């Protein structure tokens, strides 16, 4: 079962190797190969999970509530798989990008540190350990977002850092209270203790602190400010990676915490989640509709779509949670791809601004297809993956009679459609505005399309294999809604 730790240890090893390597060329090769390995590992883990239900590793051989447990269940392995898929695609993209700029020689170190943090967060079964992985993730994201050190990057970076820092402090405070209340850090043990506990102030306060901390990380309303302030300033490779992964770790933790041990007082929490979800969707969608920088449009859409995921959690039925997971993973893949495509467009046209873009449909039809797949998937157009995600969520909402939030969700999806069409019409369909100077020398190699094509394929597969994928998410949701399984698996494996 040491294999469970590989998603953490593999990036760690890669970091060590990269620290000693000075050649950018070898660093890139290691980066791509390492990411590929990571992807294979997570595929294997998913296979293992589908055979064993849940994989548990007690690190250091210390019994469950005492040591740190690493747990891979369906949710974890799905998230791992999606994340490592994105990491793989982005690493290929970065392969080109690292060559272009020499200052980025350390890029892959931070890249893998981020991966390590993300993976750690997905598989950790211990609250404090999760905090540590969050910090790993956060710090490497700080570094990545400010790479290049342009003025606006620093500016965005500072906002990003400030608000995320507050989040991690609140996280730590919540964790302290949780330990103060229960005397344990192991999630399974927490579930065992708290699920039998009548609601107490400390637990609720701690849950609230976690809610806000993860809320900031997840970028829900009104805590999302850091995201639109910073995402578009970073290098597009970094933004793509962040767009795909970072906020979704927050979603993951919210799902994990509020299904595993903060299950008391459900009425309050679910309503709070639903209210947040509604505002998040609408505000994100509205804000996206006014933007003309493609990266900003997409950034605000991240927020808007976070709302859907949170909505799934707030509705809190197996179907809704399966929907939230489905939506999350679909969104990770599609969103990353739209950003990568914007990166390619930037390479071709030298700008991200819709006002200066045009003519891409004619010039780069293949790129147009890739964009259509991802954008229409995001807009929820059937039979692409986004449709199923929305279908499941809305079905769950209607069945559980959450009409208001469903109305909001439906109307918001019109906003998504609006923005996607806006990009499509302006960047692809219309004629290139004459005032834009396009550098004719820039050649886009097939290699540049590769990661995007990979992700588009992933998006398509999620749509085509929606049935199979939905089964997995449903299994994950059922597992989540029965914390007993988790508790049993973690606390009894040593006996």
């Amino acid at each position, binding site marked *: 079962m040491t294999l469970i730790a590989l998603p953490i240890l593999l990036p760690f090893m890669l*970091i060590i190797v990269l620290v*000693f390597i000075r050649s950018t060329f070898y660093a890139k090769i290691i980066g791509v190969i390492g990411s590929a390995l990571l992807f294979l590992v997570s595929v294997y883990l998913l296979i293992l999970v589908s055979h064993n239900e849940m994989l548990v590793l007690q690190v250091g*051989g210390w019994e469950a509530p005492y040591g740190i447990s690493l747990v891979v269940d369906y949710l974890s392995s799905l998230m791992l798989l999606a994340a490592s898929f994105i990491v793989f695609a982005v690493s290929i993209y970065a392969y080109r990008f690292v060559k272009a700029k020499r200052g980025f020689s350390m890029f892959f170190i931070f890249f893998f540190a981020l991966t390590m943090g993300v993976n750690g967060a997905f598989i950790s079964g211990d609250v404090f350990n999760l905090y540590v992985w969050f910090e790993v993730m956060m710090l490497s994201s700080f570094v990545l977002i400010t790479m290049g050190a342009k003025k606006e990057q620093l500016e965005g970076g500072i906002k990003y850092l400030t608000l995320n820092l507050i989040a991690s402090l609140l996280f730590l405070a919540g964790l302290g209270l949780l330990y103060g209340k229960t005397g344990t850090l192991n999630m399974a043990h927490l579930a065992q203790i708290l699920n039998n506990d009548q609601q107490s102030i400390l637990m609720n306060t701690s849950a609230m602190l976690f809610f806000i901390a993860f809320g900031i990380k997840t970028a829900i309303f009104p805590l999302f400010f850091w995201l639109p302030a910073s995402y578009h300033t970073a290098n597009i490779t970094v933004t793509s990676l962040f767009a795909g992964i970072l906020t979704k770790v927050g979603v993951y933790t919210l799902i994990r915490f509020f299904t595993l041990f903060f299950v008391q007082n459900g009425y309050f929490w679910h309503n709070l989640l639903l209210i947040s979800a509604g505002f998040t969707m609408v505000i994100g969608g509205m804000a996206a509709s006014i933007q003309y920088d493609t990266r900003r449009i997409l950034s605000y859409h991240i927020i808007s779509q976070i709302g859907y995921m949170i909505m799934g959690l707030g509705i809190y039925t197996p179907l809704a949670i399966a929907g939230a997971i489905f939506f999350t993973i679909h969104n990770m893949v599609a969103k990353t791809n739209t950003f990568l495509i914007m990166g390619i467009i930037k390479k071709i046209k030298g700008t991200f601004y819709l006002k200066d873009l045009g003519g891409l449909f004619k010039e780069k039809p293949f790129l147009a297809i890739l964009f259509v797949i991802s954008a229409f998937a995001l807009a929820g157009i059937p039979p692409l993956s986004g449709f199923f995600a929305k279908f499941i969520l809305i079905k769950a909402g209607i069945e559980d009679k959450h009409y208001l939030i469903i109305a909001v969700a439906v109307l918001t999806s019109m906003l998504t459609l609006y923005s996607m069409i806006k990009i499509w019409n302006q960047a692809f369909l219309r004629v290139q505005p004459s005032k834009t100077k396009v550098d004719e020398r820039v050649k886009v190699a097939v290699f540049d399309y590769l990661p995007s094509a990979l992700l588009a394929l992933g998006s398509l597969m999620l749509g085509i294999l929606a049935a199979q994928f939905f089964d997995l998410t449903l299994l994950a949701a059922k597992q989540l809604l029965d914390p007993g399984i988790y508790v049993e698996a973690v606390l009894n494996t040593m006996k």
Partner: protein
Amino acid sequence: MNSVILQIATRYLKVLFLSFACIAVIRGHNYPGGGFIGGLLAALYIVYSSLAFSVQQIRRQLKVKPQYYIGLGLLCALLSFMPSLVSGAPLMKGIWFTIDSSIIGKIKLGSPLLFDFGVFFTVMGVTLLFLFTLSNHK
């Protein structure tokens, strides 16, 4: 600072700091100390010397780049997992063995000690890198 007195003192403080740092790491398992404290102490010595002389001077004197200390530290930490992997125990399980020599007596050595040394080197390297880069700008 460019003070002769401070500069002279570095030589003697070096012995004190480094030996105390090592003691802190080795004794850390049983007494106050450990990799962090040791690493920070070791780094503080270099901080002090670069105050007494100048950062650039110390940077030149230091043969090994701080990045490599970091790498070494992380490597040590990684290597400390190897015994557990090789012996088939759960990952990161501490593997201990006893050196029984007539001269020193019984000494218990284990992979956690190696891990602690990893922490030591990392912390040292990190602090040095902080020091060098934060004062690099002028």
